[in-house]
């Protein structure tokens, strides 16, 4: 057995999960699909005293369209969202990004909200959430609040969630008529974490590009409707501000080059997709 010891609570209701978090605070961790947390436990990078399992709460396993947004509950597995018949029509960017999340064999268990909670800087779902200006619905025994994606990811594997809160759902805006969406990623092997991932939303008057895998958090930038050298220069500047670092997988220079080339290709694809 590789993980350190922990108590395990299989909650029967959301109220029980809230109560467990209220009692144990930062000693407790929510577990749903476990596809990010269990490796952290096995490597002992996480050593919670108690795991609070919310995977049996059917009320959390719902995908609903509410107003102009898709609300994805904390119990929705990545495979379930990918198989949702309305996905490509409602939000093409999400439909394009999801097949890049891990492998079919991990999407079968891993949840959409779990990936957001884990906040890996190269993960695709946080990136799409940021590009689309979605939000994170947090709840605790005392209150409920919505944090915009832009404020949620605060650092490497850290978020705006308090110790007594859980992610109950995320909301992702549906597609807007006249906007174009594109997602591209470069990794050594399909299914690996991205070396650089790009998500773009093109409008008539400009484009929003979000980059994952480079800085400690996914980062988005809005550009005016520019092309040619002006766009190259703007992407250069953006790549520099992300302060890429050398690591085992790629050098900082290589990452900067990828932001320029892949970023531009993603923007151009999003513009072509505008309808």
């Amino acid at each position, binding site marked *: 057995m590789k993980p350190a*010891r922990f108590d*395990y*609570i*299989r909650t029967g209701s959301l109220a029980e999960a809230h109560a467990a978090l209220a009692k144990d605070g930062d000693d407790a961790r929510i577990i749903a699909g476990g596809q990010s947390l*269990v490796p952290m436990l*096995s490597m002992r990078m996480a050593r919670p005293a108690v*795991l609070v399992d919310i995977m049996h709460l059917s009320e959390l396993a719902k995908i609903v369209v509410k107003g102009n947004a898709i609300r994805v509950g904390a119990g929705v597995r990545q495979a379930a969202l990918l198989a949702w018949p309305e996905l490509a029509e409602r939000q093409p960017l999400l439909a394009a990004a999801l097949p890049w999340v*891990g492998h*079919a064999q991990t999407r079968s268990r891993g949840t959409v909200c779990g990936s957001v909670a884990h906040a890996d800087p190269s993960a695709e779902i946080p990136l799409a959430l940021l590009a689309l200006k979605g939000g994170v619905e947090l709840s605790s025994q005392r209150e409920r609040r919505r944090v915009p994606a832009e404020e949620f990811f605060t650092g490497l594997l850290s978020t705006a969630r308090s110790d007594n809160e859980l992610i109950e759902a995320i909301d992702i805006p549906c597609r807007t008529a006249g906007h174009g969406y594109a997602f591209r990623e470069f990794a050594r092997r399909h299914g690996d974490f991205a070396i650089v991932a790009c998500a773009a939303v093109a409008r008539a008057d400009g484009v929003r590009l979000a980059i994952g895998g480079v800085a400690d958090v996914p980062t988005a930038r809005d550009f005016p409707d520019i092309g040619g050298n002006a766009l190259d220069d703007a992407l250069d500047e953006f790549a520099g501000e992300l302060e890429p670092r050398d690591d085992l997988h790629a050098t900082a220079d290589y990452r900067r080059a990828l932001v320029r080339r892949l970023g531009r290709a993603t923007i151009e694809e999003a513009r072509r997709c505008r309808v």
Partner: protein
Amino acid sequence: MPRLSADARHRVRFELNGRAVEGDAEPRMLLTDFLRHDLGMTGTHVGCEHGVCGACTVEIDGVPARACLTLAVQADGAKIRTVEGLAPAPGRLSVLQEAFRRNHALQCGFCTAGILMSLDYYLRHHPDPAEAELRDFLGGHLCRCTGYAPILAAALEAAGKLRETSAHA
């Protein structure tokens, strides 16, 4: 709300290859170790133990998943299939297993149990798969011997054989 204590072993029951099984596990015990050490089902292999290599892939409630990313206590009440459940009878191989043998789709065999579980699932749900789909699905597995080409050949051959069988049935 039951709280399972970290220091004790707790009864875990699930269905394994159609049979009810049970054993005792600490909350921190991974399903891989529970299958192998407590239930003696050593067909499921333990590779990287963090979800990357795919050697421990089993079917949990009808979908392929990593046993090393699942706690034994989470599997309580589930339906689990492992490589031991593939062969139709002792001494006989499944169509997919037979195709693996014919095509040299394994050498050391370490990754094979996981790959068989993934492909068995995939062929059941996609009887006429394109090679590209199989490649994508195989992306969740690492094999350091074969170079994957014989595995793809075996999967395509098995798909063809299974289609023939179901057409005649």
